[in-house]
C-alpha cells in the first residue's frame, strides 16, 4: 500500500492535486467560520449552484478556460445576493433559494439542449460532485489556485479584526465607524472566489459541507473566535489531505471522501464537546 502511495506521489498530477486540495481546504475553512456565524451559510450553497449554472454556459460556449467567465459571474451574483439580503422586501434566504434553484435548473437545461458531449450525465455528475477533475488540473490552474489562495489568506489576516467586529455585532461595529458594508462586500466576494476554486475539488453540491463542517466542528470544542478559526483550518486541511490520500488508494471519488472525513470529524467533535461539557458539570 505504501508503495502504491509513493508511486502516486511521484506523479506531478497527484502532487498538484494535493497542493490545490490543501489550499482550497484552508481558504474554505477561513471563510466558513464567518459564514456560519453570520447565518450566511446558505449563501455558500446558493453561490455554488450559481457557479454550476455559469459553468454550464461556459461548457456550451466551448470555452477552453471556463474560470474566466465562471469567476466574474459568481462574484457578481454574490454581490447581488448580498444586496437583496439587505433589502427588507425580499427575505434574504428566499432570494438565495430562488436564484440558486433557477441557476441549477437553467444550467442543466442548457447543457441538455446544447451539449455536444456523448456522456452528458457524466459531465453533469462531475460538475456536481467533483469526481476526477482535481486530478486533471493543468499547471496554469494550479498556479491560479495558489495565487488566489494566498490573496484570500492575506485578506483574511489583514481584515481579521474587522471581520470579527462585523460578525459579532454589526450595529456596534457600524456605530464605531467600521465600514460594515465594505466588509460584508469583501466577505461575499471572497466567498465567491473560494466557491469557484472549491468546485474543482468537491463539485458544486458538496461545497457547503467543505465550508461549514470544519467551523461547526471547531465550535463544539472551542470558545474564542481565534481558537475556533485556527482549529477549523487545521481540521479542514487534515480532512482534505486524508480524504485525498484515501481516495487515491481506495479509488473512491475525491469530493465525497473529503466530505465524509469532515462529517466524521464533526461527529467526533460533537461527542468530545458533550463529554467536555458533561465533565465540567
Amino acid at each position, binding site marked *: 500500500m505504501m508503495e502504491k502511495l509513493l508511486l502516486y506521489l511521484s506523479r506531478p498530477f497527484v502532487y498538484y492535486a494535493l497542493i490545490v486540495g490543501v489550499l482550497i481546504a484552508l481558504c474554505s475553512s477561513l471563510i466558513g467560520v464567518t459564514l456560519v456565524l453570520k447565518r450566511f451559510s446558505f449563501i455558500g450553497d446558493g453561490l455554488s449552484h450559481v457557479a454550476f449554472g455559469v459553468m454550464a454556459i461556459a461548457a456550451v460556449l466551448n470555452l477552453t478556460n471556463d474560470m474566466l467567465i465562471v469567476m466574474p459571474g459568481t462574484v457578481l451574483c454574490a454581490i447581488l445576493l448580498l444586496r437583496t439580503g439587505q433589502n427588507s422586501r425580499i427575505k434574504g434566504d428566499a432570494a438565495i433559494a430562488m436564484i440558486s434553484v433557477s441557476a441549477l435548473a437553467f444550467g442543466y437545461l442548457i447543457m441538455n439542449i446544447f451539449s455536444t458531449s456523448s456522456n452528458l450525465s457524466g459531465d453533469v455528475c462531475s460538475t456536481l460532485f467533483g469526481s476526477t477533475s482535481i486530478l486533471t488540473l493543468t499547471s496554469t490552474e494550479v498556479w491560479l489556485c495558489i495565487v488566489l489562495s494566498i490573496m484570500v489568506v492575506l485578506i483574511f489576516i489583514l481584515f481579521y479584526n*474587522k471581520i470579527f467586529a462585523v460578525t459579532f455585532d454589526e450595529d*456596534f461595529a457600524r456605530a464605531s465607524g467600521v465600514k460594515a458594508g465594505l466588509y460584508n462586500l469583501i466577505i461575499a466576494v471572497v466567498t465567491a472566489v473560494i466557491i469557484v476554486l472549491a468546485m474543482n475539488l468537491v463539485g458544486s453540491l458538496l461545497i457547503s459541507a467543505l465550508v461549514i463542517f470544519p467551523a461547526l466542528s471547531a465550535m463544539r470544542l472551542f*470558545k474564542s*473566535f481565534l481558537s475556533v478559526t485556527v482549529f477549523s483550518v487545521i481540521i479542514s486541511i487534515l480532512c482534505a489531505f486524508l480524504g485525498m490520500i484515501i481516495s487515491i488508494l481506495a479509488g473512491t471519488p475525491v469530493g465525497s471522501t473529503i466530505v465524509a472525513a469532515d462529517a466524521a470529524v464533526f461527529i467526533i467533535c460533537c461527542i468530545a464537546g458533550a463529554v467536555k461539557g458533561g465533565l465540567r458539570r
Partner: protein
Amino acid sequence: MSLINVEKLSVGYDGNAVEKDISFRVEGGDYLCIVGENGSGKSTLMKTLLGLIDPLAGKISFGDGLKKNEIGYLPQQTQVQKDFPASVYEVVLSGCQAHFNWRPFYNAQDKKTADMFIEQLGITDLKKRCYRELSGGQQQRVLLARALCATRKLILLDEPVAGLDPKVTEEMYELIKELNDRGTAVIMITHDIAAAIRYADHILHIGDHIFFGSREEYINSDAGSFFLKKQGGDEK
C-alpha cells in the same frame, strides 16, 4: 458648544416616521434619560443618533470635538447568537476599533485600554471566559467595557438593565453613575422612571407628548406627573 444638538428631528423606518419633532441637547458630562412607552421610538432615536439609520427630517450636530465614531454604544438586545464563540477579551478589545481608521491590528495602547476597563468594571476574572456563557449582568459589563474602549466622552445605553435581577440592576446603575461622575456623558434609555429620576439630570420623554428638560422640570410637568402616578399605581 454642546456634545450633541438635535433639532426638530424625525426618526423612523423606510420613510415612515415613528416620532417627529424631537429636539434636545447634551452637554459634556450630562446624564440624560430617555423614557417613554414601548414602541414609542426610543431605540429608533438612538440608532439615528448613532448613524445606523438616516434621519427623516431635522438635524443632528456634534460639537465639542466629538467625532461621529466617538460614541460608545450598548445595544438593547445584541443580535449576538447563542453559539457565538468569542472570549470576553476579544469582545472588549473590539471596541478599540473605533480608533483604527485603516490600521489592521490592535496596538499596545489598545490592549492597555481594554485591560484598564476590564479591571474598572470588575471582570478581570472573566477575561478568558466565553462571552456567551456569562450571566446577563456579566454580559452587560463586558459590553459596557467595550463601549468605553470606543470612547470616554459619551456612551449611549439602550435599556442596560433589561432582564437583570434587582440586585444586579442596582449595581449596574451605580456603575453607570460612577462612569458619569468621572466625566463620561451618558444617554440612557430606560423603562424605569424611578431610576431615571434618581440618576439623570435631564430627561427626554417621547410618546404622544415630547418633553425635554431638567429632572425637576420633568417631575413638575404634566407628562412626568402622569407617568409617575401610573408607575406608582402599578407597584401597588
